[in-house]
């Protein structure tokens, strides 16, 4: 397949001059930022707060049903599991948002 300039996609390229479209795009972006902020908050909480800053006090508690000291578990296991979940949650949220704002890549109205 050869390279093609972006211009050949002009028909599917979103307008950036139409004020109605621009306002919708701004709203789409605002919601995206909100999702990102919430998910990054959780990202920070499980790794930097539970896994590092509060690791020592949390180690007094065991992860229920296991021998894991809780702070240590967050630092070496839990935070990694949460990271994976965060990405897939974001994928779902954004796929829906893309459709709602008609900026997804499936073409359509």
């Amino acid at each position, binding site marked *: *397949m*050869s*390279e*093609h*300039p*972006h211009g*050949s*996609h002009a028909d*599917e*390229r*979103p307008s*950036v001059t139409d004020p109605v479209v621009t306002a919708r*795009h701004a709203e*789409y*972006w605002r919601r*995206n930022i909100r999702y*990102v902020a919430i*998910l*990054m908050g959780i*990202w920070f909480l499980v*790794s*930097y707060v539970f*896994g*590092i*800053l509060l*690791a*020592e006090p949390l*180690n007094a508690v065991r*992860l229920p049903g*296991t*021998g*894991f*000291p809780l*702070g*240590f*578990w967050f*630092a*070496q*296991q839990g*935070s*990694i*599991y949460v*990271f*994976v979940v*965060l*990405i*897939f949650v*974001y*994928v779902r949220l*954004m*796929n829906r948002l*893309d459709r709602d704002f*008609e*900026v*997804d*890549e499936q073409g359509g109205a």
Partner: protein
Amino acid sequence: MNVQAWTFLCVAASFALYIGIAIWSRASTTKDFYVAGAGVSPLANGMATAADWMSAASFISMAGLISFMGYDGSVYLMGWTGGYVLLALLLAPYLRKYGAYTVPDFVGDRYYSQLARVVAVICAIFVSFTYVAGQVRGVGIVFGRFLEVDINTGVYIGMAIVFFYAVLGGMKGITYTQVAQYCVLIFAYMVPAIFLSLLITGNPVPQLGLGGVDQASGMALFDRLNGLHEQLGFAAYTSGTKSTLDVFFITAALMVGTAGLPHVIIRFYTVPRVRDARVSVGWALVFIALLYTTAPAVAVFARTNLIGAVSDTPYSEVPPWFTNWEATGLLAFDDANGDGRIQFRGPASPVPNELTVDRDIMVLANPEIAGLPDWVVGLVAAGGLAAALSTAAGLLLVVSSAVSHDLLKRTLLPTITEKGELLAARVSAAAAVIIAGYFGMNPPGFVAQVVAFAFGLAASSFFPVIILGIFSKRTTREGAILGMVAGVTLTAAYIVWFTLMHPELNNADHWWLGISPEGIGTVGMVINFAITMTVSRFTPEPPSHVQVLVELIRIPRGAGSAHEISA
């Protein structure tokens, strides 16, 4: 069949597989060469990213490091996985929408400046070469240890293989070999881990066994290990010795560095759509997490086994693996008090320590310690090679595309033909392989330390300008250039000062605010952000076509296959 024969068989079979894939997936256009034709499925790309990302250090050294560092090892576990959240939420979808071929491509276009492009090219080459030398060395060491060939011969063989599929196949060849390499390396990692977990805890899942009960003593495994540590004068395994602030900064530098490493970022240019880029980061982290959640379990099993097997054991009664590894010089016993027993002691113990153990042994010797069949040992060797080769190939591609695409096509020779550029890409890939091989055989003494610092440099150079380029339309070329230069200069200066010029001062008493050179990338990143944002406020705003470009990057619709937007 003995261990040697099994090792030859496993390594030869895996190499034949890689070469076969390389022939099947030759690159015929520059687009194939740079971004695998942007036609890689998100799942396959996730696997390739995982192999690209997990180097010899992850495979061979990490579990051993954690085993010796205890809680402090968390910096690697969180640091080398948390960056993928940043990639998925802040970088990958937008860079895929932009559809460039390289990282300097994006920086040069977004900051409407050839100077910014050239600064980015230099940063990319610098970061990638520091990293690749360590990989090539890793290939040589695995050959040396398992096949008993000279390390230099090992480097030649490894380089020949990489040369073959990187030069021939470019990104396309690399992608599909990396998928195969991931399968080899994860299988090789999990088999001994599952055996060990069964042996020690009776649970076949290492991640669960880690939180389980030690079958020998009937105590929770962590309680047993902490008890042993206390008895022998080591710091508690679950507490560690680094300051909280340093752990915080190192983790941040590794996370942000991961998200800023060019060879990781360009993997997300290879999928067809923006939504594929998002989910592909998720798959990459799933495949990485499989190894990264197993590593702390392997670390604890190996530590418990080691202490159990050697502590206060008469030297005349040590198991055979002990003497085998002693012969390699990676395990050393010095009977200081002359009682014929091995005193393995920590710094808090009144009895002097008599045993020194190289950290790399932990993963490599595991199959022997656990008494696993010979074929498992061969498998581990093939896995270590897969990890080192896949990372080396990904890095070499960054170097070659930086030269042929960013320097030649976009800067010096814009009229170069498609065929000419493809040839230039192959030639620079070949040159990069040869230079990397040279560094592998004649490693500058500081390579091992410097590899970890590639992250600090990536964190303090690329990450802030890419993020701001997407999330702030107001960011100007003056801000970005000054930010990159300041961030990377400060980080490099701090690292060079403490590791090359004054290694004797490299301890917490002399570090600025107690931040180690491994963690300084975080400071460099903050400075880069601060300078880029401040300078951008006082310089003329970016031209309107760049602002339109940013608007378009933020919206998935309209992403074709990877190409250059000539906005």
